[in-house]
């Protein structure tokens, strides 16, 4: 019995050895395949697999096939550091990913020292690109960009008293701070506090919020708390309008809150996959539909796809996989590339240039409707 067990163990070790032996251009994908953001990571992988297949069907890159090597970062900095080391030793040219800002940060130095280009797809924290890292790019916008759009939306609603509620995460706090500083002189911030994520009852903080009498509440946290807030706000019979940051953009928000509580809720987001205007995006989405039977639900997966396409384009244009040349090209000569999520250019810090965020509103049936 014991021998069988050890045999099984040894066999699994053998299987777990180098899976990819094919000669080709390796592009890494680092995403949360397990953990609480697993749905994001798995969709990222689906998108990249599909795009890589399309590139390979057309003859690959520089005459070689593209191989996507994906690693699990578990949504946790320690696991991510290991995933990054592993990708670095597998000879990848560049890496797409990852979703969480703190997770990306734990891997930035590893990639930078290994001279691997990293294109993050969901890490919006401002400080990631303020370190002057030469090989770091991102296809998602930064939090300050979102703050700007949020303040525009609040101004448009004509609100003079604004409450800002965050949850102390890197992302939510950053967005809240940004919005607060941009609101100065335009509207009064009557409430600025954090809730504790993953609780079930937020009536205490809602009562406190109500006492501050805001005309609009800007919630910068994630969708599970957002859904609960909306439901409990309705149960309190408090009709104040809520605006959410892009982390409330998830169909589960409606499932948690219920259609009635969600109706009229606005949130900021990069356009949802279904609202992407370009022809390229439409044909990609229909391919995705035929391949996997459903549309991608998360814009971050599509942004990962854009990261991959940007890399392919840059490698093709430079004619080599030399990280210095590719990075220099992306910084300087790469302008207005027709990405799935709109035109893509990078500034000298590696941040995406251009407006990405839109305002969405939830209708009575729980659908997300793009606001003009």
């Amino acid at each position, binding site marked *: 019995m014991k021998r069988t067990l050890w045999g099984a163990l040894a066999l699994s070790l053998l299987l777990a050895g180098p899976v990819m032996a094919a000669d080709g251009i390796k592009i890494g994908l680092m995403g949360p395949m397990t953990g609480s953001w697993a749905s994001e990571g798995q969709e990222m992988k689906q998108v990249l697999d599909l795009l890589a297949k399309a590139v390979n069907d057309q003859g690959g890159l520089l005459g070689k096939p593209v191989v996507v090597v994906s690693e699990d970062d578990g949504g946790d900095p320690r696991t991510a550091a290991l995933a990054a080391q592993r990708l670095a030793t597998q000879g990848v040219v560049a890496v797409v990913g990852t979703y969480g800002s703190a997770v990306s940060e734990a891997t930035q130095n590893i990639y930078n020292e290994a001279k691997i280009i990293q294109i993050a797809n969901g890490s919006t924290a401002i400080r990631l690109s303020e370190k002057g890292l030469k090989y770091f790019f991102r296809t998602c916008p930064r939090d300050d960009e979102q703050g700007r759009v949020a303040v525009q939306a609040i101004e448009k609603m004509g609100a003079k008293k604004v409450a800002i509620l965050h949850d102390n995460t*890197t992302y939510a706090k950053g967005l809240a701070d940004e919005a607060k500083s941009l609101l100065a002189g335009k509207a009064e911030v009557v409430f600025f506090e954090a809730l504790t994520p993953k609780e079930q009852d937020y009536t205490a903080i809602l009562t406190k919020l109500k006492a501050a009498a805001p005309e609009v509440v800007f919630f910068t946290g994630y969708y599970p708390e957002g859904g609960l807030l909306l439901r409990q706000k309705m149960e309190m019979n408090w009709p104040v309008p809520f605006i959410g940051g892009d982390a409330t953009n998830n169909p589960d928000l409606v499932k948690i809150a219920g259609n009635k509580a969600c109706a009229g809720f606005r949130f900021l987001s990069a356009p949802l996959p279904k609202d992407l205007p370009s022809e390229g995006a439409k044909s990609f989405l229909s391919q995705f539909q035929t391949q996997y039977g459903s549309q991608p639900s998360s814009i971050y997966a599509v942004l990962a796809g854009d990261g991959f396409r940007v890399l392919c384009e840059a490698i093709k244009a430079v004619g080599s996989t030399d990280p210095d040349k590719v990075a220099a090209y992306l910084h300087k000569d790469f302008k207005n590339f027709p990405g799935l999520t709109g035109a893509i250019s990078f500034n000298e810090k590696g941040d995406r240039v251009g407006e990405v965020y839109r305002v969405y509103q939830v209708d009575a049936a729980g659908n997300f409707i793009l606001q003009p």
Partner: protein
Amino acid sequence: MMDRTKYLYLAGTVVLAAAPAVLNTYWVDVLNNVGMYAILGLSLNLIVGHAGLFNLGHAAFYAIGAYTAAILNSHFHIPVLWLLPLSALTAGLFALMIARPIIHLRGDYLCIVTIGVGEIVRIALINNVFGITGGANGIFGIDRPQIFGWVIRRPQEFYYLIWLFLMVTVFLFQRLENSRFGRALNYLREDETAAEGSGIHTAHYKLMAFVIGAAWAGMVGNIFAAKMTIISPESFSFWESVLMFTLVILGGSGSIPGVLLGALLIIGLPELFRGFANARMAIFGVAMVAMMIFRTGGILPARPRTYRLPQPAAAVEAKP
């Protein structure tokens, strides 16, 4: 018998010292993680394995050590390694403070309190207590450790730091296990009433075990902070405590080789199973279940120790 173990340890040391020359950076970094969890496991082993106190909040002490190092380093630029004793001190003091009123609790009751403590610490860190923990962002920009002006940066360099620390830990804990202190802990684990009856101050010994274990975890926290250069509360979740607890129980509680093996399996196997992509955690779980079915007492359970009475001089002479 003793000689064989010595040779085994010697051979192990040689293999380990040569490992970075053979393995690539990734595997060296996996071994770094194994090493850190082995030290954490050994520190928890003193509490769980020797004193028999169920502690499912060990990540709290680990976190306090890490945050002590991170805060003092990022604000006052004190070299990280100098803060090693201070990390131990704060974690130990914190353990003393919270363990003193609850040390008389038995078994699962103590376990529940420690889970609570672990969560309180994590949530306090998220809520930015005293405005110094950086909230959910955590603290970034922690310096790399330096030894005489030589900056430890690459995983290979960390490997020697961590495994040297592990060796020192193994040596000290081995000594502790065979001391009067270790025997007292084992006695009160087996039968607290009898131990008290024999004149062992049980509360004192339990507290000491708690404090030493916590202080050691605090030092690992220091190294973790220096290695990652960024720490955030999600690194010290309840799951971390469970991992440490599991590796002690799986390897064999109360046994140093068992804990080392446990760390190797718990941290190493998920990495080995990376080839299975999305199913890796499921396969890891199956492997764990299989092991617990076949080895219920842990893989390398603690062996009963024998002590020879010193033979009277006359008896020795009488023998031919």
